[in-house]
């Protein structure tokens, strides 16, 4: 019983801590809540009016929601780029920060699940996905795999983070058997979430633009570039805003990972472009639409060239010694994240539908309502991550711990 009481006290303390903060903290959280609420409002609107409130059509039946989802699955998977150095190569400096990556994975997976939910025409029927209430088309449907791996990854990370933080709070050494096996499962799981998400598209023979074996490796490479880049930026924010100091060492290691991943990503992109344009079969129409426009339809052309430009810029900076200067490194990271976000969203999801399998060209642009929902989910994800950092950092710093009379002995 005392264990449960102790855990309950822990939760109460976290709850109280959540509301303690400077006016800056309140302003930031208030701002994010406001954007989230605007998103909730837009979603309520969409629930009532149907998905006609979006820019999607029968021809382009997936849009901004699935694009953001795909990008974010990559970011979530990239937490593994902290876990591997920390747990496999046992690099001490990474050990301190690995938790931030795992917490980010939790927030990002939540965003992924939200993006999928808002994409549903009938979110009220979500139980249909869950046996025994529903009928999951597993193992045939790749989407059913995705539901399993995403939720599994969320649970794994919740367990790892929750357990480590709670042990730190109690002032005990975490028992390896309670988290190390999960950490290693999570490494494979992280790769699987992104692979499965790629297979979602790759498995569709009717869409030659996606039906490409290189899509999955390209997914992973771009994710392992964008994810660590996001972590580089986040770590700098953490060390500036909170009391938790993160040295430059993890940043430089992440920079190396980002650089290599980006190199691989660009190489794979080159391979893909070669296949599409050298052979020049009719199967490359979507690529033609994306890179050069088709029959006067060219909405995505400026975007994809911008993305390529940003990625090349980021690569040039990252491989040069200039990236030792933090502001330049940050600029490269921002360029990289934006570049990959465009590449995955507008560059991969939307052109898969253009032209349709019957050759009809219908273009896509998210509607305002759709955009608000996306912004709302992003704001909610950032809100969630901010809150997790807000309560996790005092625990990691030892500021929040069990009182001497609360703690029960390790071996009662």
């Amino acid at each position, binding site marked *: 019983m005392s264990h449960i009481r102790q855990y309950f006290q822990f939760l109460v303390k976290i709850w109280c801590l959540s509301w303690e903060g400077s006016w800056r903290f309140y302003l930031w959280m208030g701002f994010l809540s406001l954007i989230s609420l605007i998103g909730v*409002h837009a979603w309520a609107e969409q629930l*009532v009016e149907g*998905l006609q409130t*979006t820019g999607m059509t*029968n021809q382009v039946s997936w849009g901004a929601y699935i694009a953001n989802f795909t990008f974010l699955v990559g970011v979530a998977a990239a937490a593994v780029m902290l876990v591997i150095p920390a747990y496999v190569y046992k690099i001490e400096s990474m050990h301190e920060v690995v938790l931030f990556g795992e917490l980010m994975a939790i927030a990002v997976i939540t965003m992924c699940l939200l993006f999928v939910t808002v*994409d549903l025409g009938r979110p009220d029927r979500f139980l249909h996905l869950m046996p025994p209430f529903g009928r999951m088309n597993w193992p045939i*449907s790749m989407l059913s795999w995705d539901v399993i791996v995403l939720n599994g990854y969320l649970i794994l990370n919740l367990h790892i983070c929750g357990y480590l933080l709670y042990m730190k709070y109690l002032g005990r050494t975490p028992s390896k058997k309670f988290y190390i096996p999960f950490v290693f499962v999570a490494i494979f799981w992280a790769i699987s979430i992104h692979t499965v998400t790629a297979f979602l598209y790759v498995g569709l*023979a009717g869409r030659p633009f996606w039906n490409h074996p290189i899509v999955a490796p390209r997914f992973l490479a771009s994710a392992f570039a964008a994810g660590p880049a996001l972590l580089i930026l986040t770590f700098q924010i953490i060390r500036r805003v909170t009391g938790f100091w993160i040295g430059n060492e993890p940043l430089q290691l992440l920079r190396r990972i980002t650089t290599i991943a980006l190199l691989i990503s660009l190489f794979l992109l080159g391979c893909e472009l070669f296949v599409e344009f050298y052979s020049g079969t009719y199967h490359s129409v979507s690529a033609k639409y994306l890179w050069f426009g088709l029959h006067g339809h060219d909405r995505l052309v400026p975007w994809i060239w911008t993305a390529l430009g940003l990625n090349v810029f980021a690569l040039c900076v990252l491989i040069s010694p200039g990236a030792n200067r933090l502001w330049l490194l940050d600029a490269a990271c921002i360029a990289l994240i934006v570049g990959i976000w465009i590449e995955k969203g507008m560059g991969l999801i939307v052109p898969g539908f253009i032209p349709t399998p019957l*050759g009809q060209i219908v273009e896509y642009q998210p509607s305002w309502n759709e955009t608000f929902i996306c912004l709302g989910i992003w704001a909610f994800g950032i809100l969630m991550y901010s809150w997790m950092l807000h309560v996790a950092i005092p625990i990691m710093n030892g500021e929040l711990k069990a009182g001497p009379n609360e703690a029960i002995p390790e071996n009662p």
Partner: protein
Amino acid sequence: MAGIAGLVTALKPLLSLERGDISLSDLLQKHYQELSAEEMSRILRKLEKQSNEDYGVASNINDTKAREGVQFAYALSLSKCVGCRRCAHACLAENNQSRESEDDIEMSYIRVLELDKGSINVEESDQYYDGEVPKKDKYYMPVQCHQCQDSPCTKACPVEATWMEPDGVVVVDYNWCIGCRYCMAACPYDARRFNWKKPSLPPESVNPNQNYLSNRIRPQGVVEKCTFCLHRTREGKYPACLEVCPTGARVFGNLLDPDSEINYILKNKRVYILKEDAGTTPKFYYFFD
């Protein structure tokens, strides 16, 4: 406090949800294949009542089951079709889709492609042609669901809301579909449509002869598709698109009957399968004569 007030305000649009749009009994309804006969008849009566309230027409919604020894297939003569779109419009009327504005024809299960003679590449096709047909140096190819034997759409569905019936028709349980639209992405024939809004059609446009798995008026937010007019064909009749064709380009029948019209076509004509390379084994054939 402010947070809760904000949340309530944000959710305000939900108040305008009509009664019946989302109801508890709908949420608890089982998958089509798990429903007993009594449950089904209760659901059908409820749907009839709901449809009467919403659209002002007393419809008759049935659940005619597939018959033994029947496999439906369709063939279409590319030599005969003139591209008049009678089929696409008849489809709309038969299957109770929106008839509110002129672009509702978009929801028709049939898309008629105009192709240049000398090429069979649908990527070069045009769906927007108008005026008198057939045009010089053009030929026409209506495309609808091919009822593939190895259907990528049913593979894609995460909740088994779409499956192939014993008579070879791929159907959707509109009360089970979650609206993720993965099946639409999977279809190589652009044969599936999504209910982006609640269908709106005046009482005089409602076809009261309805079936649970085919042409009953669909709820908002689910995917629908051609069922070879299952509500007609399971009762022995021809599909609506065939009956309206002024050129007799369309041939429909039972694959398992060796003397059927469709088997005659398969045996005696040059048959072409669209996108055969997608490997989906369609039961919709194009032929030349």
